[in-house]
């Protein structure tokens, strides 16, 4: 139950007394102002320095890792190899960093107070990692207290090339929230331009949505990148920890969140390396589902030639995904009007596949013979067989499918008509 009006009044009266007493012992907060940085020595030990702007400051922590640093199954310096191979790749792709320098890539992640996208959701940590020629540098911009956002965004925006951020769901999460908070101080800091963006979350979704229960970065780290985190504070505790830090701004309070964020951006490097290899070496992916997904992605971005190679490779395997790969390949052939090759695949699926493949392939064969080869009799033969297969499936699923039923009947009637006309 909410407090009553009278209770409120008492509470407020008590507060008022306390405040007047406090004020006598204390300077005005605005006078105390931002003249000193609490625990500045300890921050120094953590590689953190204040960044001053417009009378206030934010904190910047810089951490360096060697290129040989092994994060899960990858050496992070491998980004250089991956980068080189993208420059040489025969196809383009949304994840390709062709035309950029390695150091252009900013692996970026944030920590916020809560998940809401409204104006009041404070973003208190903006972290990014870059891989240079000789080392990896992580820079984390920390909001030491609310109100210092002018300094925070000034420091962040003058430090980052926002045309090449690499994030995990940044398009939908981090960036809109950053834009929101930036809007509140927009007259005092550099503009926030439109930007290019590698969002690895979408890549992960494409490749692993069937394989993983959840696509949270932590799951991907564990199951794909073999990264184990020790003593990691879970991300959902970050708001609480930050709140405590504001009460007592000792660096040790907030360091666990900084380390968590540090791990996050390192994982983004590993993930980018991994995803790049998956795409660059899609022919060699061992997991058939992943391989199929990679091929479809290449196809979706218009890289048909690259996709075709992967489909061909996948369809030669002795796994059930091979049939799906063949099917995709056949659709590619059809689009390219290579009917002979398409029909060969369909016949194969029609003769050796399950009832479902029989239906799909049979239908395609019927269409091809009707419209392309102009052989109504052959078309009718396939349509009739496919219809039978469809009926057995429909019966098993116990669902009324009147619309499909009608379509089948119409097709068969039309083919019968055509067949008879030719026969005369």
């Amino acid at each position: 139950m909410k407090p009553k009006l009278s209770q409120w009044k008492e509470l407020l009266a008590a507060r008022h007394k306390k405040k007047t007493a406090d004020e006598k012992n204390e300077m005005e907060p605005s006078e105390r102002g931002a003249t000193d940085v609490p625990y500045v020595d300890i921050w120094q030990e953590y590689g953190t320095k204040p960044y001053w702007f417009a009378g206030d400051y934010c904190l910047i922590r810089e951490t360096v890792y060697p290129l040989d640093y092994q994060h899960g199954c990858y050496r992070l310096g491998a980004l250089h190899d991956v980068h080189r191979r993208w420059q040489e790749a025969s196809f383009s792709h949304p994840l390709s960093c062709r035309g950029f320098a390695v150091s252009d890539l900013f692996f970026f992640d944030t920590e916020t107070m809560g998940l809401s996208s409204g104006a009041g959701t404070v973003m208190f940590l903006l972290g990014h990692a870059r891989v240079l020629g000789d080392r990896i540098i992580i820079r984390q911009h920390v909001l030491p207290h609310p109100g210092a956002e002018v300094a925070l965004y000034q420091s962040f925006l003058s430090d980052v090339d926002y045309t090449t951020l690499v994030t995990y769901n940044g398009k939908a999460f981090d960036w809109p929230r950053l834009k929101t908070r930036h809007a509140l101080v927009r007259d005092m800091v550099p503009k926030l331009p439109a930007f290019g963006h590698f969002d690895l979350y979408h890549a992960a979704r494409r490749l692993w949505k069937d394989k993983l229960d959840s696509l949270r970065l932590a799951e991907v780290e564990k199951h794909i990148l073999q990264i184990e985190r020790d003593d990691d504070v879970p991300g959902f505790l970050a708001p609480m920890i930050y709140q405590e830090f504001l009460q007592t701004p000792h660096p040790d309070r907030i360091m666990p969140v900084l380390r968590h964020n540090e791990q996050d951006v390192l994982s983004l490097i590993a993930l980018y390396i991994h995803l790049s290899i998956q795409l660059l070496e899609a022919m060699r992916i061992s997991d058939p589902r992943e391989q199929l997904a990679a091929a479809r992605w290449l196809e979706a971005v218009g890289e048909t030639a690259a996709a075709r190679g992967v489909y061909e490779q996948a369809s030669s395997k002795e796994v059930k995904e091979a049939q799906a790969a063949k099917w995709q390949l056949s659709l590619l052939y059809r689009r390219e009007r290579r009917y002979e090759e398409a029909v060969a695949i369909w016949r194969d699926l029609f003769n050796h596949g399950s009832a479902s493949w029989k239906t799909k392939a049979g239908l395609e064969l019927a269409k091809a013979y009707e419209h392309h080869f102009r052989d109504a009799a052959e078309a009718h033969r396939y349509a009739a067989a496919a219809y039978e297969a469809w009926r057995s499936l429909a019966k098993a699923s116990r669902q009324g499918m009147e619309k499909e039923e009608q379509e089948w009947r119409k097709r068969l009637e039309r083919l019968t008509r055509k067949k008879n006309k030719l026969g005369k």
Partner: protein
Amino acid sequence: MKKQTLSEWIEQLRQDPNVVYWHEIEPKEADTVPFPAEIDARLRAALEARGIASLYTHQAAAYEVVQSGRNVVAVTPTASGKTLCYNLPVLQAIAKAPESRALYLFPTKALAQDQKNELNEIIAEMDVPIYSYTYDGDTAPALRQKIRQAGHIVITNPDMLHTAILPHHTKWISLFEQLRYVVIDELHTYRGVFGSHVANVIRRLKRICAFYGSQPTFICTSATIANPQELAERLTGEPMTLIDNNGAPRGRKHIVFYNPPVVERTMNVRQSATKTAVELARQLLVNRIPTIVFARSRVRTELILSHLQAAVKERIGETTIRGYRGGYLPNERRAIENGLRNGDIIGVVSTNALELGVDIGQLQACILTGYPGTIASTWQQAGRAGRRHGDSLVIMVASSSPLDQYIVSHPEYFFARSPETARINPDNMLILVDHLKCAAYELPFRRGETFGGIDVEDVLDFLVDQGVLHERAGRWHWMSDAFPAQNISLRSAAQENVVIIDISNIARHRVIGEMDRFSAMTLLHEEAIYLHEGTQYQVEKLDWEEKKAYVRQVDVEYFTDANLAVQLDVLSNDRSEERGAMAVHYGDVSVRAMATIFKKLKLSTFENIGSGPIRLPEETLHTSAAWFEWKEVPSEFSPALFEHLLVGLANVLSHLVPIFVMCDRSDVHVVPQLKALHSGRPTIFLYDRYPGGVGLSEAVFERYEEILENVKEWVKRCPCSDGCPSCIGVSDTGGQPVKRELIQFLDEQLAVWSGSLVSHRSCEEN
């Protein structure tokens, strides 16, 4: 048979012995002025193409006041062209300066939709790229971004402003930077708790406008209430200019009070208002006189509808009469609105859903089944009948309730009084703190900044202690992972609805309507007969978790009526006043409601033909209450007789208190108990039907003496011999003279208190 015209039918009605009062409003000519010279030529042409060649005086006055930069509240009856009061200045401003923006607030989505259509017709005619959109829960995500950036006129409701627009103001920069006008239509609906919430939402809106450097002018329109200017000023926190020089023409209007005949003289039982209304409406409809019937509940609406459809089927076809109430799906409502406008539908039976400004054109006759509860509502409903030329007719059919009987036997009470005062209390601490949190989330508070003129630093500091805000360098920042607007509802009723799904056709289930959760307990329990558009459905399964009711079409001879068992517990006793054997208290209570059983009632006779249990979890309401308590049953009464006294007293209170504290009958509940749970003492509780309470029972506590005095006078003056529905109610009292005993009891009680006569402040006082 030759059809009668309305005038002929009116003449016939004059002879009806059940007409107890006849009031006529004289016709009036239109009062117009030419368009101001500066009106954009395209806007003017668009209006002229719609048949608007000049302005009514009130429209012109509103335009001029707005041009001078002042805020305006226009009070206009139904169909007097009120929308032009705001559309004219807004469209003119945008035509002149395309970067200008306007925000329209309507209390419901349906009204917003209506307004968008009307506005877009004018805009299309103007042939100027002005974008006006509705922004509500139904708006497609793809469209939202466009509206935020390019919508000149954003049409929404206060709830959306509260949860979706203000907390996300950084996505609306182009709106807030250039916001010239805020339009608040149906101002009178923003009263009580809801209005107090909305007033705080507007404080937040103004704060954000100030941040982006805009200072919008407010344009409000209101139905007739006692204090439109005061309400508009309190709601917006801005000085207002009142416009009430209505220049629209109107024909002669007849307002008739109709008291159904007494059918049982000893018990003073009258024919039911429902039955009477059906008969009157039937006579009008068979003469093809466009008629609207208002009923006080959803079930009544549907009952009247099915009776009427059956009665006129032969003569005019049943689809020409439709129901209209909350819970119908939007497209169904749209179809009915269109049908009414273009004449395909000539009869409509509605709940107060049509009190608001939904445009359905004008009908010739209007029947109110029972007194709607307030003078303002009555005028609003009566406004549905009225033509610019020619007669219109409003019949109010009294029910046997004391209030209805009082109104029809005291027509001067109704006609001489101004409509109710709409009260809001934006400074209500509980409501204010809720919105202060939202405001702090939206923008940090600065030292010295007020909220709606109130110094809130103490509250802000308190919120710092609570760990919600963080204070630094003279600013209070939101510092919590919560999104405060989400947990604050502007309205009392649960927003969560139960969806009603028709499963008659197994292959094609379809949603036919929805209903708020509380009503669903008694109207959508399993086996309930749910009436929709006159069709009967039986509820087969109520999935309370998923909030879905599965219904199947049936054809049965009965409807259902459920009992709600209510348990009331006192949580705290904050204020008390002892007066001898009696005490009055004020405090917090919890009210737990549980639907227990339902009855099956025969459609034709309302006779009970069966019953069944209801198994649903209880609903809890924490609120404030006032209660009258006696130490024990006074020695001169038997417990049984005293219980009758309490029931009688409660009955009168439930009808008189709303007049005192200005609320609807449903806002305050009165519960008599011979042995209250917390004390074992005879008690009458009156509690606010709003979570947390809204001060209604507090007012009862403060004015209890005056109220009891009026209760006594009321009962004394009632002409019945020993109780009737108009005073202490009708119940089997075993032949004991309850009425006489109650008068005597109150006499003694009041005499003890004052020693003499209590000053005679009557309940007519505003």
